[in-house]
């Protein structure tokens, strides 16, 4: 597992690049094996991973609680959707860049009043933001398409990729897989950026601001600028993730970004592990296959999926998981993994000590 070393804290950017490239290549290879339905799910999970990376950075590393990231997602998605609606021929990479920038700007707007706030005030403030953003979108329906949203379908599968497929459903399969591959590659790029950001000078300053803001200030860290930067980064990641998410759904509409999406994001982040890179990926994977997971649990417990209880099973399971993780394993799955490695390490040390004696 030498190539995974690049994800460790002390490693340099080139090693990190290799590690991320290998991981992305593995994920791309997997899309060739998965059926089209699973590929579509994977694409959604990759988009969510990008959002969780930003959220994990904001909550885990800068210590600022946000329940507004579904709002930032909506801003990015609408920016991309509205642009693509008027300029259909724009290359996708430019649309995504636009979503990232506009998402980041919305983060700046929210951050200016919010970085003065702590804990619950901040959580409530960001919650109010995400509650206000979708009604706002509905209000300007001439631009945003109101309840029905805008069609956002500028994704075209290139010819050479089409040719890899044959058979009856060649086009559908190719499209599903191209979407997944594109999403995975975008997630890979953002993962690499975030990995560097986590371990950069700013990232270290951010942790100091979180743990001891007075000490940080004495060291010459500008508190409000650092906190604002954290918000802007998280919001631009959310904006990009939201745009990608809407592209996968082929529409941008208010109901994609309900208040409960913020809860889902929080659950996935806590479940994966707050403030860890691997946790964001774990969260994304859990999201991808949560519908399968829920239907599996439904069939295990004999609940009729068409019944009222079956339809709400996902909400119940996610909520219970969030509560249990926070009560019993607050560092999430990634935290448990780290703990297991440390435990094995300390056992090995103990064993070698006994040999000496």
């Amino acid at each position: 597992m030498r190539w995974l070393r690049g994800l460790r804290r002390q490693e340099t950017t080139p090693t990190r690049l290799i590690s991320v490239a290998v991981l992305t290549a593995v994920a791309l290879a997997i899309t060739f094996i998965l059926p089209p339905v699973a590929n579509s799910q994977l694409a959604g999970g990759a988009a969510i991973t990008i959002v969780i990376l930003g959220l994990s950075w904001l909550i885990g590393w800068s210590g600022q609680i946000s329940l507004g990231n579904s709002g930032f997602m909506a801003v990015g998605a609408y920016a991309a959707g509205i642009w693509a609606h008027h300029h259909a021929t724009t290359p996708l990479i430019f649309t995504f860049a636009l979503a990232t920038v506009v998402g980041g700007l919305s983060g700046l707007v929210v951050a200016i009043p919010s970085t003065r706030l702590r804990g619950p005030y901040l959580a409530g403030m960001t919650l109010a933001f995400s509650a206000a953003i979708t009604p706002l979108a509905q209000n300007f329906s001439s631009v945003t398409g109101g309840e029905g949203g805008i069609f956002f379908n500028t994704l075209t599968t290139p010819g050479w990729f089409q040719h890899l497929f044959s058979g009856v459903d060649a086009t559908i399969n190719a499209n599903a897989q191209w979407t997944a591959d594109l999403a995975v590659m975008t997630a890979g790029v953002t993962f690499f950026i975030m990995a560097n950001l986590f371990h950069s000078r700013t990232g270290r300053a951010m942790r100091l601001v979180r743990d001891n803001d007075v000490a940080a200030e004495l060291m010459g860290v500008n508190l409000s600028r650092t906190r604002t930067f954290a918000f802007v980064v998280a919001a631009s990641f959310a904006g990009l993730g939201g745009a990608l998410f809407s592209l996968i759904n082929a529409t941008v509409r208010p109901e994609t970004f309900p208040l409960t999406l913020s809860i889902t994001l929080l659950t996935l982040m806590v479940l994966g592990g707050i403030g860890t890179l691997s946790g964001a990926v774990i969260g994304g994977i859990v999201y991808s296959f949560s519908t399968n997971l829920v239907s599996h649990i439904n069939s295990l417990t004999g609940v009729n999926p068409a019944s009222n209880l079956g339809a709400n099973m996902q909400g119940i399971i996610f909520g219970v998981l969030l509560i249990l993780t926070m009560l019993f394993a607050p560092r999430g799955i990634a935290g448990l993994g780290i703990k297991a490695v440390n435990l094995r390490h300390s056992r090995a040390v103990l064993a070698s000590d006994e040999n000496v004696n």
Partner: protein
Amino acid sequence: MSSFLTSSFMSNIFGGLAQGVIYSLVALSLVIIWQSTHVLNFAQGAMAMFATYVGMTQIDRGLSYWWCVILSVVVGMAFGGITERVLIRPLYGKPEINPIVVMVGFLGVIEAVTTAIWTSTSRNIAAPFSQIYFKAGGKLVLLSPFIIFQIILAVVIMMLVAALFRFTRLGLQLRASALAPEVARLLGVRVNRMLTIGWMLSAGVGSIAAVILASGSFGLFPTNMDGVFVAGFIAAAVGGLDSPVGAIAGGLIIGLTEQFVLAYWSPSVAPLGGMIVLVAVLMIRPHGIFTRSVSRRV
């Protein structure tokens, strides 16, 4: 006089006050919990909604409206007490994000369970008051017997809570354990019990808000308290999370603001009005209007 009462300005004042008292109650319930346990209860609205479902659906079984109201409050209080015991007590002394996350998760569970039991269809709870507006000189005044009942009930509840805190032995113990838990414990106050009672009290107040909301034209459905919770939180933050008086004033401010935004701009941007007030207030006083400024310990 009658032309004054029927003017659109007064209609908006009445509408804003009617909505504002609901926000005030939610804000007050948040402040009670915040004062006693320093937890912002994100599931407050959902807990109250659940209690209202349990209580008010007994109307279908032939129970009278008033017994259902009392049942809702009792169920709400029990629910609040159990929640504090089971979910919040293990988290005292943990980072402040932990209880926030747990209560956000609880919110999701309650709404999903409620939808699973009662479906998401809105149902009407018939209050024993007419919802038809009064008329003055042939024109409508935006006041109905129900709205008057709603305002009076809210004011009575607020006065009861104030009286409890100010004039009773229990209120004194509650205030003591919120202000100085260690000293209160030394003086023989059962602080842990006070925390549970604080949560019960808060959940009871929240249930009243949910009952009023469900009895009006809004109806009862699993997410009906979401928007009200956000507005109630904004109200509490505007007034200052430490100040019950601030919570009530904040609720009225937000209710009136939303009503005027709704009337003069568009209903769908009403939540934005509350948020702008919040931003404006917090820019000037980060801990709300009515709170004493606190010095932060280094």
